[in-house]
């Protein structure tokens, strides 16, 4: 049995405590198949072996606690490290401060969406939120909203497809990466488009400057 199958086997023996432990560890950033376990838990709910609200409460709590640990690691570890590296480069510290300001504008929505839609990005955003000193109470709010939504979606999918746990978790795992890829394509596509546009406008300006004026014709 591979790791996923061993975890599924352990879930059927140990139940909710195992679900809690695995989700907590995965939320910190250690890659365990959380979506698979949540779908399986949804299937157990449908079969009457687990209670729906117990799964929702425990899984959400585990995910939120794990995210807070990731945030703290970013805040106390990553920040000092990045600024120490930044000081080595010219204007490095200024660039980091600018990056912090930009991140703060978008971080709330980013945290919320990375909890349930762009899930592979979740642990990274925990670190960057801590690193950029995004206010903790706001991080907690967006994190809790996103995580509860994520747990409800996956457990409900597990209930609906309770007889197809393995196939459904494969689909969900792949779809999460489809969303990440699409987000990247939109982001990098937009950057490319704006760089080509700015290049085009500079070209036009230089062409206009190079064109001979009426006064030039008169003098020749």
């Amino acid at each position: 049995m591979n790791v996923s199958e061993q975890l599924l086997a352990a879930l059927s023996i140990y139940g909710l405590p195992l679900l809690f432990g695995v989700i907590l560890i995965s939320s910190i950033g250690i890659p365990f198949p959380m979506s698979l376990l949540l779908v399986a838990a949804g299937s157990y709910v449908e079969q009457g072996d687990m209670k729906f609200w117990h799964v929702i409460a425990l899984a959400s709590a585990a995910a939120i606690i794990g995210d807070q640990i990731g945030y703290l690691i970013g805040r106390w570890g990553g920040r000092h490290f990045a600024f120490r590296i930044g000081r080595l480069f010219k204007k490095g510290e200024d660039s980091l401060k600018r990056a912090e300001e930009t991140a703060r504008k978008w971080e709330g929505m980013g945290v919320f969406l990375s909890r349930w839609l762009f899930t592979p990005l979740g642990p990274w955003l925990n670190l960057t939120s801590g690193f950029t000193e995004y206010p903790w109470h706001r991080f907690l709010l967006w994190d809790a909203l996103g995580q509860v939504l994520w747990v409800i979606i996956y457990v409900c999918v597990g209930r609906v497809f309770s007889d197809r746990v393995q196939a459904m978790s494969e689909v969900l795992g792949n779809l999460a990466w489809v969303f990440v890829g699409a987000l990247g394509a939109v982001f990098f596509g937009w950057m490319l488009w704006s760089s080509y546009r700015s290049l085009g406008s500079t070209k036009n300006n230089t062409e206009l400057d190079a064109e001979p004026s009426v006064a030039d014709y008169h003098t020749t």
Partner: protein
Amino acid sequence: MQGWPRRILLLAFALSIAITVIFAMRAFQHRPHPKVDDPIRPWMSVPYVAHSYHVPPRVLFQAIGHPMEHPPDRRPIAQIAAEQNRPVQELISDLQDAIIRERQFPPPSLSPSSATKPIQP
């Protein structure tokens, strides 16, 4: 922006498109099909197999020579096989045979309407 920065952006854009397409194809390939069952795996418990294949758990427990308890034994098939000193694949084939038999010849059962009526002598 010109030269290397733009090349890196192009590469990142192409990589994002590739990730989207590859994982979309994988998601499509693994989509649950109503007429295709998930294969029986060692992590599954007997009640889960019964639920997945829509057969009574009693039939499957009987097929592997394991008593039907209340609540039913939720341990993985691999653990039951180890307890019985049998290869897990042998247990899986017993379950598959029982499912095929059950689907071909389901045991006679009372319909909901007849179940409420007393049996006439």
